[in-house]
């Protein structure tokens, strides 16, 4: 029987070899970030003999790391929060009414059709719009990220809410609960699993996004981490060790979160994308 077959060592070997392709660039990133130019000249591949932690200190100084980290953290956390609140709410209203009322059905297709709109078509006008609204800042970034996730999130949320039995809400109505009360006290907590998925996907895409901050943000004090890497690329030209220390610092927060929440993140991404 299959379930009792032995461990497949050939496949195991191939899987291990495959991980080398994943890990090699990351190994290079870590070692280069810890070397100095002399060590680089000796061998690019070798593990550093002495560790040059000062690369990190200098990279932090040069790129104003803590400020851009704070910006990234604010944008990511606020976007996730706002997304969870606003997207779940509209999805609930749609899911519970789309069968009976044309307005909600229309709204569903209105949102979901935006999944096919490539960002470049709104890229040029959005810059003028945010400039005229004085939103070329973190607030603008948060709102835009929230809006651009809406199409996919509404799609995922509506699918999930429709699997929650309506009987629960009817019982609450009979007990005198308002629609708002039902949403916040019954439905919103019940949506925790799908909210976790939406939250994870939003977190990853917001934190790593480069194009939106690139076109929206002009004040260096509001740069996010990827934008900082882009802006400082020119200044790193010859100092690869500093550049890599800076890359590693920017990658690290997500890697740390990933180490702790790996299983959760993988499951969340799978659920979100397959729905």
């Amino acid at each position, binding site marked *: *029987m*299959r379930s009792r077959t032995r*461990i*497949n060592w050939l*496949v195991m070997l191939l*899987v291990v070899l*495959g*991980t080398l392709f*994943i890990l090699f*660039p*990351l190994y*290079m990133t870590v070692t280069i970030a810890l070397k100095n130019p002399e060590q680089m000249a000796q061998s*690019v*591949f070798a593990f550093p003999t002495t560790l040059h932690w000062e690369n990190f200190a200098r990279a932090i100084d040069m790129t104003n790391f803590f400020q851009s980290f704070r910006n990234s953290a604010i944008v990511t956390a606020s976007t996730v929060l706002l997304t969870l609140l*606003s997207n779940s*709410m*509209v999805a*609930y*209203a*749609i899911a519970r*009414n789309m069968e009976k009322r044309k307005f*909600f059905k229309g709204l569903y297709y209105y949102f979901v059709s935006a999944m*096919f*709109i*490539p960002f*470049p*078509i*709104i*890229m*040029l*006008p959005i810059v003028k*719009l945010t400039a005229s609204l004085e939103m070329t800042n973190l607030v603008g970034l948060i*709102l835009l990220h929230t*809006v651009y996730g*809406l199409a996919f999130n*509404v799609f995922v949320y509506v699918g999930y809410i429709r699997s929650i039995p309506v009987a629960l809400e009817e019982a609450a*109505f009979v007990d005198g609960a*308002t*629609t708002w009360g039902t949403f916040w006290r019954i439905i919103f907590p019940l949506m925790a699993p799908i909210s976790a998925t939406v939250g994870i996907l939003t977190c*990853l895409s917001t934190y*790593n996004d*480069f*194009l939106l901050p690139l*076109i929206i943000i002009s004040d260096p004090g509001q740069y996010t*981490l*990827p934008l900082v890497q*882009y802006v400082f*690329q020119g200044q790193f030209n010859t100092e*690869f060790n500093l*550049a*890599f220390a800076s890359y590693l610092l920017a*990658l690290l927060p*997500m890697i740390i979160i*990933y180490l702790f929440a790996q*299983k959760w993140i*993988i499951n969340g*991404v*799978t659920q979100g*994308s*397959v729905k």
Partner: protein
Amino acid sequence: MNKRIAPYYWMTVPAVVLFFVFMTLPALQGIYYSFTNYNGFGKEYDFVGFKNYFNLFQDDNVGNAYWFTFKFAIVVTILTNILSLLIALGLNAKIKFRNFFRGIYFLPNILSVLIVGYIFNYLFSNVFPIWGQNLGINALSTNILGSESLAWIGIVIVAVWQSVALNTILYLAGLQTIPITLYEASNLDGAGKWREFWSITFPLIAPFFTINMVLAMKNSLMVFDQIVALTNGGPGRATQSISHLIYTGGFEGGEYAYQSANSVIYFIVIAVISILQIRFLQRREMDL
């Protein structure tokens, strides 16, 4: 009754307002500007009808960007799907530390595309050439990103390295939905591994194949970050993608209206491809 229904309408208000202002309005504006000769700043502009659209079809840079983007997207989609299906099969087999390997293979997906691009840029320019020289392989001994004919391969490698992660996990999710009894039955019938794959595994993960093809295609048609990090569209314009062309032409080249027209075309192309892909692949799903 009304007290129960009215709140539903209120619940839609924040999302509808935000969506209309930041999505629909800009999209309509983009279409509007595509019929003008607006340069992106100032207030003066005239209507030029379909002139921008006519010019697009005669513009070598535009043709070049579409050619590069399609070549890139097709190759990336195929490679990503083959590799991730193979990896998913490997990770679904009887091996040790399955969850650990799952974790490693998914890692690239959580990293910033731009930074991954910068890291590979360094590898292409400073690390791989050393290997090429040591091993005496001519093709590897110079930076391929500097070569007009090879640079696109470098971008394909980076894109595939990163996108395989997501597709692998999706295929893996698909493989886990297949009931093990089917394999037991086919074992009893004496089916070989190859037969088993084509008759059981592949048909049953067909919906996942559809999703992965559409996702990979759509993502690679939008390629931007990798271009910025690896080649900035060069050498020459050999690796300029459509979105990179819209960005540089629209913001830096004073072609605001012209690139708006380009993005309208781009939108139509992406929508048509996505719909065709879904139609075609779903019909295949049903046939199986």
